């Protein structure tokens, strides 16, 4: 069954990741985002990409 909002948008297949993200407290979002950036910088450092 397909769920549609009043303006016709299909909402039957929401992204689980996005739903999880938007339900998080902003402090946790910032913590995860900051750590993700740090890990990416670490990977860049160890692979000599920068």
């Amino acid at each position: 069954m397909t769920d549609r909002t009043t303006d016709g948008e299909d909402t039957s297949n929401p992204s689980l990741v996005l739903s999880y993200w938007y339900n998080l407290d902003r402090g946790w979002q910032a913590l995860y985002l900051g750590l993700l950036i740090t890990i990416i910088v670490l990977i860049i450092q160890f692979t000599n990409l920068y």
Partner: protein
Amino acid sequence: MTISNVMRTQVPGLALLSIGALIAYLISGAVDSLQPLVVSVILGFVIGNLFGIPDIAGPGVNSHKLFLETGIVLLGAAVAIGELISAGPTVLGLIVLTVGGGVLLLEGLARGLFRIDNEMSSLLAAGASICGVSAVVAIGRVLDARGATLTFAAATILIFDAITLVVFPIAGEWLNLSARQFGVWAGVSMFSTGPVAAAGFSHSPEAGQWATVTKLARNSLLGGVAVAYSVVYTTKSRGNVGVSKLWKEFPKFLLGFVLVAVIANSGLLSTTAISLLNQISDVLFALAFVGLGLSIRVREMRRVGSAPIIVVLLHLLVVSVLTLLIIQITL
């Protein structure tokens, strides 16, 4: 929540923030002594007050708070525990004294004498006592301060950054301070890291090194002061709260700040990587400051008045004179 939904709601606002930050970087790159953060907030302020925020851009612009908090998490990479230890016990004692005493002095003056509201007092106390605008932003997020308060506090600190950058080197010359004395004095009295280093190196390379080491050591106390503010404000607003309540209200991004500081000081990150994290943090702050500027209205600024400037001036005079006396006796 679908990807197309997120794209439609977030992208216009994010594009507005990005274009604002890009223009701010271009302008500050072209004009010496203009900081990107100042230009970002002014640009946002002008656009917001002249044209308002288009409805379509609202949700994206609102994400500036997330950029602020993420920028603070990455600020942890600038914490230098090694510098803190290498500063030596006398300088360390002076740093703890100026940060602790400075916060209490400014809070006391602002709330007791000038009847400035609690949020503004705390932001000014953090900015003047720890590390300038970064501390204002960090404590502002901890207290969930209003945009206008945050911007006015940051602007006040930036005004004093400009003044002290000129006055301190002249005073150092006039007082005939040694390189170490001047460097430590600038490191414990001035506000933001950039102007402290600039003032130190304008005296001599040795003074520049002392100023930078002292200032970085002082910046390292930001996490502790932020946690203390979080606990004090939560306890005050909710009465006698338990640990679980404190944890619920605790700004979790501070944990990220501590984690990144631990990673940066563990030796895992190279100097280049730390510098890259600092640059990313600056970009996030620039995006966030465009958003802050966009959300401030002129009428809110008018309510603040000139009292914060007078309070910070008094604080600066007391702290710089007292630390100068202690430095001349002990160093």
